[in-house]
């Protein structure tokens, strides 16, 4: 889109004024219609400047709706922004910064905004009131999912989410400060300036792209000059201070524990797309010693029949569009209010160039100064009147009733003000309950989260002079609290404008649907219905009518709704109370919470030290916990994984193979009490282990169940190195730290995780020793005598590389694990391949490892399930009876010591060709497959190339006494049901001659 000539002025753009750059024109489109605005516009101000009043259809009744506010509270003007993968629904036009090329589309209408066929719902309104769905679509229940819900969802709704993956990126940032100031209006600016001058580290967060708050929207003076100039001057001072971070487009949306605040910075939402290497949004976690909530206040509507007609707006919004954006929201407005502020707003709108037909005030008594000023401006004042109806497709006129007499007034805009509600949302995030202040006719903050104080309008100081003073004082208190010296600062001079108010909520005698919550289409009648049906507490009212449950969370409707309920019950607002607010203050895109954690970057991936080598070997990788490990190494011509795995297993059993086992947890333990410590955490004894030997150990949780297993080697008199399973590495380390620091701090042991420091490769097979002998440095004897089974040797390999040799075996073959510094891992792998070439050395993956351990009956993660005891796994006899250890006492409980518990057995199919499935349940033959008859299940299965059939390990009741029995393996999930024979859990070399070879 190319911009129009800059000199063309949109229909409702005022001749002068506003914080917009009239020298530049931005082209944008709404529902395909090409329009233009200026830098400094929001989408809403640009639409109004172009005379666009109808911007959306309502959620439930599809009623035509227009722009109501000029801020984040907007309930109506929700649009879809952009298209394709960047399409974002439910964007508030009032806070959408205009940019060149912006495409906006109205939502929840079909086929078009002007002609919406679903507005027929409006005719059904008498039937669609509160609780309608609950009452109507009750039966039959099955129809809910198939019929009712999809139909309702189609008819009622907001915008459409993008259907493609989000192309943008998001970041997370931490920040720390002495004082976080939330909001940059009069109070926020004064608080930030006071603290900044005292030397405090200040973050000033402003949701808007233009800081200054109401100073930009109103024409009040500060220190004898327009308020927006005071704001600009103060901001320039703050921007020049090194201890201040000014953050615009940044919404603080939540208060968390310990002075932590969540904020979202819209880095690129005002651009067609993010710049190179820029995120769309940034999530800030701000830790602040003190915080000041200076979020201002939100204007409330008055509820009357026809109050949702496009053209009916908040009085402050009309004022803001005139002052900040140079836009006449209407050519001829009437004002309907219950407070002095709305009169001032009217005067400013009149001064800016809008026509004003009348001010209708529900109060009979209005301050004479306001009446005089109205007269001077030629505005008709109607005290003691109410609006009782509206007319027009977009607003064309209103009916007022005053003194029992009705009158029609032709206007295209109606500015409404029912008073102001402090934006105290964040004060509720720790459970603080707002307190009703009858003098202000508003809820003000009750108790606030620790370290947070509200100031200015957010604290109920609604007039400009009071807000400036309050901000200054709150800033001074905050810096004094953190121990800085505050030099007295004179507050700027500003008047306290008239702010009288008489609480008024609802014109009961008005005609037409009177909307309380415009976003969720909740009417005054719905509240009356809730009252009639007994849903009278604020929490019931909210849930029964959905009042305040839309994306705006009732910013303009909650107080009015509960006030109407209070009128109906006669209980008064104070006794009725209010619902409280939770984070987020305004909707936050989920993408920003995910940040970079999406897709492959969802969590860090750990690579083994030999990853590059394995890649070159053509490995197929699999995620095991955080690790990427080689699953198997296919060779050309192999057509499925089982073929590859069978080859790998056979090669190891016949000659030699190798696998990276660096992922095992490795824990270095040193100190005079290391042996005693290990005795207390393992069921078996390690203090008696000779130096230079390794031992398999099992450790329990304190409840008596197995936690983990692995080998631990004694490298010196007071030096051990423990291995843990890959999955439990961090858990075991944390457990050992607990035992050392909490249970037995008197033990002199130091621990360090060395999992990352050592690359470890298992070498297995009858030729393993011959390969090993070729890589150790001269003088290292690896003969069976020098390095027997379970022996450990510290030496060097590959010409001076420090290494630890462990003669241990998981595969059941003659095996070694060779540990070298992690950086040498790849070199070691290459060297082993070269040294093993004459023997056809075969790299194998964790599938083959699994096959071989099942053939040997070694337990692994499937058996160490957190539900098994050492005895269940056939390891009960390892437990020393001469010492205590973690879990010993509880393991002796009758339920855990019961010999009838399912215990480890081997299983093989009676039909040798049948395939076993892990997870299948074991049942006695010939009984029904019921839970009562269940005797255990298959934990692990593998195809054994050695035996030529499938084998399994399982847990079977009284299993070890049932060898040779036949049981039924029943697998209803995958349709398996076959006979299996119970055998000893070792299918190969039960005497262990191979590994001692």
């Amino acid at each position, binding site marked *: 889109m190319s911009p129009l000539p800059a000199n063309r002025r949109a229909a409702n753009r005022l001749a002068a004024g506003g914080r917009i750059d009239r020298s530049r024109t931005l082209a944008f489109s709404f529902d395909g219609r090409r329009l233009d605005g200026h830098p400094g516009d929001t989408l809403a101000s640009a639409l109004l400047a172009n005379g666009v009043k109808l911007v959306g259809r309502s959620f439930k009744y599809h009623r035509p709706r227009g722009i109501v506010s000029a801020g984040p509270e907007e309930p109506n003007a929700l649009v879809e922004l952009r298209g394709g993968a960047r399409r974002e629904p439910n964007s508030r036009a009032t806070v959408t910064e205009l940019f060149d090329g912006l495409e906006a589309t109205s939502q929840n209408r079909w086929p078009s905004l002007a002609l919406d066929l679903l507005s027929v719902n409006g005719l059904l309104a008498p039937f669609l009131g509160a609780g309608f769905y609950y009452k109507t679509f009750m039966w039959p229940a099955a129809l809910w999912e198939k019929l009712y819900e999809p139909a309702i969802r189609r008819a009622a709704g907001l915008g459409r989410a993008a259907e493609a993956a989000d192309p943008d990126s998001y970041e997370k940032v931490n920040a720390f400060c002495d004082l976080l100031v939330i909001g940059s209006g009069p109070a926020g600016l004064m608080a930030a300036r006071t603290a900044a001058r005292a030397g405090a580290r200040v973050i000033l967060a402003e949701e808007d792209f233009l800081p200054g708050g109401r100073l930009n929207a109103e024409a009040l003076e500060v220190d004898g000059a327009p308020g927006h100039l005071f704001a600009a001057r103060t901001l320039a001072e703050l921007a020049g201070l090194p201890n201040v971070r000014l953050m615009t487009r940044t919404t603080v949306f939540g208060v968390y524990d*310990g002075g*932590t605040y969540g904020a979202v910075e819209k880095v690129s939402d005002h651009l067609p797309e993010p710049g190179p290497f820029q995120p769309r949004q940034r999530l800030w976690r701000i830790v602040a010693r003190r915080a000041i909530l200076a979020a201002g206040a939100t204007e409330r509507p008055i509820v009357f029949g026809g109050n949702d007609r496009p053209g009916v707006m908040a009085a402050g919004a009309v004022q803001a569009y005139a002052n900040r954006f140079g836009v006449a929201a209407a050519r001829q407005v009437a004002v309907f209010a219950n407070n002095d502020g709305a009169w001032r707003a009217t005067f400013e709108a009149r001064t800016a160039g809008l026509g004003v037909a009348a001010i209708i005030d529900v109060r009979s008594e209005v301050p004479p100064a306001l009446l005089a000023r109205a007269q001077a401006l030629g505005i008709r004042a109607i005290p003691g009147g109410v609006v009782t109806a509206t007319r027009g497709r977009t607003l064309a006129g209103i009916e007022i009733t005053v003194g029992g007499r009705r009158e029609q007034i032709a206007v295209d805009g109606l500015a409404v003000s029912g008073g102001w509600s402090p934006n105290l949302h964040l004060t509720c995030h720790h459970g603080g309950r707002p307190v009703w202040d009858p003098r202000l006719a508003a809820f003000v903050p009750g108790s606030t989260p620790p370290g947070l104080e509200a100031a200015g309008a957010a604290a109920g100081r609604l007039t400009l002079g009071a807000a400036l003073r309050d901000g200054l004082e709150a800033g001074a208190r905050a810096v004094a609290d953190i121990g800085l010296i505050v030099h007295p600062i004179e507050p700027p001079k500003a008047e306290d404008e008239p702010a009288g108010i008489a609480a008024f909520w609802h014109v009961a005698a008005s005609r037409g649907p009177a909307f309380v919550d415009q976003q969720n289409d909740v009417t005054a009648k719905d509240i009356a219905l809730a009252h009639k049906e007994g849903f009278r507490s604020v929490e019931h009212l909210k849930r029964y009518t959905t009042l305040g449950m839309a994306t705006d969370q009732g910013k303009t409707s909650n107080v009015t709704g509960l006030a109407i309920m209070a009128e109906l019950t006669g209980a008064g607002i104070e006794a009725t109370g209010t619902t409280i607010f939770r984070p987020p203050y305004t909707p936050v895109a989920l993408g920003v919470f995910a940040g970079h954690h999406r897709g492959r970057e969802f969590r860090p991936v750990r690579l083994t030290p030999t990853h590059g080598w394995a890649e070159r070997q053509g490995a197929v990788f699999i995620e095991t916990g955080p690790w990427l490990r080689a699953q198997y190494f296919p060779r050309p011509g192999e057509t499925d994984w089982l073929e590859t795995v069978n080859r790998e297993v056979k090669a190891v059993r016949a000659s030699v193979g190798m696998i990276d086992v660096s992922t095992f947890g490795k824990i270095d333990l040193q100190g005079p009490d290391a*042996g005693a410590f290990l005795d207390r955490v393992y069921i078996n004894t390690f203090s008696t282990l000779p130096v230079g030997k390794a031992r398999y150990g099992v450790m329990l949780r304190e409840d008596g169940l197995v936690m983990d297993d692995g080998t631990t080697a004694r490298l010196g008199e007071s030096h051990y190195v423990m291995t843990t399973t890959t999955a439990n590495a961090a858990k075991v380390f944390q457990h050992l730290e607990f035992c050392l*620091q*909490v249970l037995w701090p008197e033990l002199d042991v130091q621990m360090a995780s060395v999992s990352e420091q050592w690359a470890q490769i298992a070498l297995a097979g009858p030729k393993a020793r011959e390969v090993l002998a070729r890589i150790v440095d001269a003088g290292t004897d690896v003969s069976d005598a020098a390095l027997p089974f379970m022996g450990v040797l510290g030496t060097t390999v590959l010409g001076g590389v420090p290494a630890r040799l462990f003669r241990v075996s998981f595969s059941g073959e003659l095996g070694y694990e060779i540990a070298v510094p992690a950086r040498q891992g790849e070199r070691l792998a290459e060297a082993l391949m070269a040294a093993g070439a004459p023997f056809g050395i075969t790299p194998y993956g964790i599938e083959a490892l699994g096959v071989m351990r099942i053939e040997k009956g070694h337990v692994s993660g499937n058996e160490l399930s957190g539900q098994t005891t050492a005895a269940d796994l056939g390891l009960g006899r390892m437990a020393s009876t001469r010492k205590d250890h973690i879990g010993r006492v509880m393991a002796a409980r009758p339920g855990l010591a019961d010999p009838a518990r399912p215990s480890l057995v081997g299983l093989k199919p009676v039909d040798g060709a049948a395939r076993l499935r892990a997870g299948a349940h074991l049942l006695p033959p010939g009984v029904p497959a019921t839970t009562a008859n269940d005797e255990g299940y298959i934990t692990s299965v593998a195809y054994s190339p050695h035996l030529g059939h499938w084998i399994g390990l399982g847990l079977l009741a009284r299993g070890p006494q049932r060898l040779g029995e036949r049981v039924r393996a029943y697998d209803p999930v995958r349709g398996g049901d076959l006979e299996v024979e119970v055998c000893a859990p070792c299918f190969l070399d039960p005497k262990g001659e191979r590994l001692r070879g």
Partner: protein
Amino acid sequence: MRIPCPFCGSRDAHEFSYLGDATPRRPDPAAPGAEAAFFDYVYLRDNPAGAFEEWWYHAAGCRQWLKVARDTRTHAITGAVLARDVAAPAAPTPAGGETAR
């Protein structure tokens, strides 16, 4: 939530892992009635509303177990000390004592 680690200073709770109530003490495994005492120690926990002492492990920091005083109603944390500094009565020596010294 922020935890004042005696080593590392004020740190976000994301760096820590949580264990729970720090009041139960591991019973003497050799004492009569050890099984009942262990049952209590392993499974039974109070859930007080208010002041609470609990174990936190600074996993992404100094790896120290801390005893943290927290109010369960407000999450206000009033202090944290190193577990090994807490003047615990000497833990019972395991039965059979194969202690190295």
